[in-house]
C-alpha cells in the first residue's frame, strides 16, 4: 500500500493500530477453515465505532476490499481476505453498552466475546442461549454475521432468534439503523434480518441489540446407549413426537465414541453404535416429569442402557464426553475437516448410512457427532492436507456429502456459513435466480464490491 494512503489510515485509528509488516499481515491471512492463506495489504484495528465508520469510508473511496474479522474462528473461510485489501479487526470494540433487566435486551459492540457476554448476562440473573462451540473466543459480531448456532439450537434457536436490531455502516460510512429495543417492531424493511448471516458482504456492524430471557430453573441430563444408529435416531423422533423439546439432544457415532474413550477415559461403552446425550430444562416439576418420559421413550425404543445424572457432578460427566468429541477427533490426524451439512431430523439414519458409504468409497476416516435434535451433524474427516492424493479424495467426499444432504432435503450449512468453502455449491441448493437476485442486491448496496467480495454468492 502506498505511504500516503497508509498515513490516512494511521490518522483515523492511530499508528499503533495499523499493521503492515509481512509477519503481521500473514497472521490475518487465514481463519479456522482448511483453506490456503491470502495476505491482506493492511490490517487496521479501530478503537472506536466512529473510527470504524471512517475506515469503511476510506476503503470505499479507494476501492479497497474489506474483510471484517473478530476472532478469526470462521470454519468456511469467511474471514480470509481472498481479494487482499484491508482486514478490519473488531476486537478493540468490545464494550457491552447496556444490559436492560426490565426490558430484557442488551446492546453490544461487535467485538464482545460471546462467553464473556453470556457470563455478564448470567451475573444479572438472565440468559443468552446461543452457545456456538467457539464461544470462549468468538465475537458477537461474528456470531450475527454467521448466524451461529450451538448445542441449544433445538429448544432455544440460534443467533438470529436473539437479534432485535443491528446498526451498521454502509459503504459510505453512514450509519443505517434497524430493529428496535421493543419485542414488536414493524418499522421499515427488516434490515437487521438482512444483516444476520450476511457474512460481512452487505454492511459493517456498529452495534447490536440482543434479546435476553430468564434462565431455566432446573436441568437434568442423561446418556442413552444404542446398538444401532437407526434406533437412536428413531428415539429422537419419538421424543419430539411426545411433545418434549429437550434443550440439547446430541449424537455420537461409534468411531467418535471409541476416540473419545481413548482420549478422555470417560467410561463410554466402546462397542455402542450410537450415543444420545439428552438434557431437559425448565421448571423443576416439568424437568422431573419430562426426564421420566424421555427415559421411558429411550427404553421403549431399545436403548441398551440409560444413565441419568443424579447431581451436578454427574451431569458434568455426561457433557464432558460431548465436549471432548472434537478435541479427541482432532488429535487423531494432522488435519481435521469439520463439516456441518444438515438434514431434517427424520433423515438422520439415511444421512448416517450415506456417510458410512462415502467413508468407504473414498477410503477415509470420518467420525460423526453433532446436534441430532436439529439434524445438524458434524461429519469430521480426519486427514493430512500435506498428502495431495488423499486430499483429492477428501474434496470428492465433501462434494458427495453435500449432494446427499441436499437429496435428503437438507442444507449445505447448519451453522458454519458458506464463505469461500461452499459458495460453489450454492446454486445446487437454491437456484440460478437466487444467486442473481443476491448479486443484484449486493451490487446495489456495494457498487464497488468492497465488502468481503467473493463470499457466499461468488461474483
Amino acid at each position, binding site marked *: 500500500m502506498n505511504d500516503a494512503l497508509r498515513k490516512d489510515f494511521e490518522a483515523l485509528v492511530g499508528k499503533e493500530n495499523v499493521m503492515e509488516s*509481512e*509477519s503481521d499481515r*500473514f*497472521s490475518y491471512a487465514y481463519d479456522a477453515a482448511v483453506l490456503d492463506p491470502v495476505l491482506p495489504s493492511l490490517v487496521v484495528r479501530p478503537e472506536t465505532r466512529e473510527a470504524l465508520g471512517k475506515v469503511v469510508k476510506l476503503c470505499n473511496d479507494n476501492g479497497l476490499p474489506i474483510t471484517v474479522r473478530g476472532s478469526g474462528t470462521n470454519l468456511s473461510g469467511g474471514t480470509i481476505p481472498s481479494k487482499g485489501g484491508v482486514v478490519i479487526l473488531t*476486537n478493540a470494540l468490545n464494550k457491552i453498552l447496556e444490559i436492560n433487566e426490565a426490558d430484557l435486551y442488551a446492546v453490544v459492540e461487535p467485538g464482545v466475546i460471546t462467553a464473556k457476554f453470556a457470563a455478564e448476562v448470567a451475573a444479572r440473573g438472565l440468559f443468552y442461549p446461543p452457545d456456538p462451540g*467457539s464461544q470462549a*473466543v468468538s465475537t458477537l459480531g461474528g456470531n450475527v454475521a454467521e448466524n451461529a448456532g450451538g448445542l441449544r439450537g433445538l429448544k432455544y434457536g440460534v443467533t438470529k432468534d436473539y437479534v432485535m436490531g443491528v446498526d451498521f455502516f454502509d459503504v459510505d460510512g453512514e450509519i443505517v439503523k434497524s430493529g428496535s429495543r421493543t419485542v414488536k417492531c414493524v418499522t421499515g424493511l427488516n434490515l437487521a434480518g438482512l444483516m444476520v448471516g450476511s457474512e460481512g458482504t452487505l454492511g459493517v456492524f456498529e452495534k447490536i441489540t440482543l434479546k435476553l430471557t430468564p434462565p431455566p430453573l432446573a436441568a437434568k441430563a442423561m446418556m442413552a446407549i444404542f446398538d444401532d444408529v437407526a434406533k437412536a435416531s428413531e428415539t429422537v423422533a419419538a421424543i419430539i413426537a411426545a411433545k418434549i423439546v429437550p434443550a440439547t439432544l446430541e449424537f455420537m457415532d461409534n468411531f467418535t465414541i471409541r476416540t473419545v474413550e481413548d482420549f478422555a477415559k470417560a467410561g463410554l461403552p466402546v462397542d455402542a453404535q450410537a450415543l444420545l446425550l439428552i438434557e431437559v430444562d425448565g421448571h423443576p416439576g416439568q424437568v422431573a416429569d419430562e426426564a421420566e418420559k424421555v427415559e421411558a421413550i429411550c427404553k421403549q425404543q431399545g436403548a441398551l442402557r440409560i444413565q441419568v445424572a443424579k447431581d451436578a457432578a454427574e451431569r458434568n460427566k455426561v457433557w464432558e464426553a460431548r465436549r471432548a468429541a472434537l478435541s479427541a477427533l482432532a488429535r487423531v490426524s494432522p*488435519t481435521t475437516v469439520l463439516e456441518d451439512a444438515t438434514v431434517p431430523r427424520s433423515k438422520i439414519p439415511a444421512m448416517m448410512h450415506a456417510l458410512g458409504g462415502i467413508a468407504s468409497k473414498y477410503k477415509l476416516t470420518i467420525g460423526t457427532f453433532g446436534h441430532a435434535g436439529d439434524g445438524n451433524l458434524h461429519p469430521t474427516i480426519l486427514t493430512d492436507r500435506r498428502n495431495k492424493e488423499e486430499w483429492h479424495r477428501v474434496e470428492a467426499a465433501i462434494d458427495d456429502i453435500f449432494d446427499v444432504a441436499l437429496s435428503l432435503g437438507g442444507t449445505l450449512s447448519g451453522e458454519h456459513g458458506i464463505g469461500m468453502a461452499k459458495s460453489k455449491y450454492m446454486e445446487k441448493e437454491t437456484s440460478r435466480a437466487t444467486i442473481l437476485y443476491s448479486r443484484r442486491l449486493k451490487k446495489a448496496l456495494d457498487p464497488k464490491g468492497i465488502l468481503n467480495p467473493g463470499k457466499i454468492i461468488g461474483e
Partner: protein
Amino acid sequence: MSDMKELLRMLGELDDQLVSCMRCGMCQAVCPIYGQTGRETDVARGKIALLEGLAHEMVKDPAGVQDKVTRCLLCGSCQANCPSGVKGLDIFLKARAILTAYMGLPTVKKLIFRGMLTKPGLFNNLLSFASKFQGLFTTPANDIIGSSCSKFLEPVLGDRHLMLLAKTPLHKDVPSLDTPAGKSGLKVAFFPGCLADKIFPRVGHAVLKVLNHHGVGVFMPAGQACCGIPALSSGDKESYDKLVRANLAVFAKGKFDALLTPCATCTSTMKKIWPTMAQGMSPAEQEAVRELSAKVMDVNAFVIDKLGLTPPKANDDAIAVTVHDPCHLKKSLGVSAQPRAVLSLNPRYKVAEMAASDACCGCGGSFTLTHADMSARIGQQKRDNIKNTGAQVVAMGCPACMLQISDMLSRNGDRVSVKHPMEIYAEGL
C-alpha cells in the same frame, strides 16, 4: 548457520508439530499477552502460522518472525487449553533455537550465557562480588517485601522494585550435603535453582529444615549449574546443552529416590523440557537425562504425596494467605492442590483464594526485561487480584514469580509479604 536453506530444513523438522494446529483459535481465550494486545501474532495460533509460513517460504522475513515468536511468556497456557493437543512450548523453544542459530545470538546474551552462566564457579563468584556493592546503587523500597529500587540502574531496569542478591547465598552456608535417609526411609537430591540460591536462600533453608524434620536424607552436590531455561528461551542451545551436561555430571554421583526443586520453572524444565530437547545428545546421555528427569519433583508435591502429611485444622485466628499458581507448576505439571496443602500444615495460616489464581504473573524470565511494559501490565492484574483478597501474605512455589510479584506489590506500596509455601510450613516447625 546463516543460509536460508538450512533454516528451511530445520523448520521443516518442526512441520509435523506445526501442522497439528487446526487454527481454531481457542488459545485466544487464555494467552496473557493476547489479552493485553488483541494481536494475532501474540497468540500461539499466529506464531505457529508464522513459523509454518516461514518454513514454506510464504513468509520471507525471519527477523520479523523471530521478533513475534519471542513475544511470549512461555507460560504454557495455550498448550494447557489446546483442543488438538498442540505442544506450543516445545514448538516455541525449538523455534527460538532454530531462529537464533540463523540470526545469531546478541553479544550481550553471548557474554551472559557463554561467558558466565555456563561456568557455575565464575557465576557464583561474580554475583557474590556484586552482592557486596549493590547497596551503593540501591535504596530500600518496602520493608515487608524486602525490595529495593535503583535510580542508578534505571536505564537498564526501569522503575522496577528489585529483590537484591542475598548477603550470603545458600551455597556459602551449605556448600554441599550428603546425609542418609532417616525415619522417612527416603533420600532426595536437592536442586535449589539459581534464584533460591542467590536471591531467596531463605527458601532453600526452609526446604532443608523441613526435610531434616521429617528424616529425609539429602544429597546436595556442589557445582550445580543453572537448569538451562534462560539460555534455551533465548535460543542458545549450545549453552543450554552445557548446563544440562554439568548437572547430569554432579547428580550422577549420588543415589536418591527423587530430585526436588523449590522452583516451578526449574522443575518443569528438568522434567518436561530436558527429555524433549535431548535429541542432539549421545544415547548414553539421553538415557541419563531420561533417568534423572523421571526423578524430578516439585518440593510441595513431595511433601504431600510422598511424606503423606495431612494438614491440621487451622487456628481460629489464622492469618489469611492467598495462593498464586505458577504456570510451570499448575499448567505444566498439574501441581496446584499440594502447595495449598503445604501451607495449611502450619495451623497459623488459612487459605484465602484470589480470582484467577492460575493467571500468569507476567514474569516469563527475561521477558520481564525485554518487554517491561507488557510484563508490568499483566503483573498489575495479578497484584489487583492479590490485593482484593485482603490477605497479608501471598504464597507461591516459584522464586521467579516471587520476584515479579514482589516487584508489583512493592511498586503499589502494598504491605503484603511474598513467601514460598515451604517457608510458611518451616516457620511452624
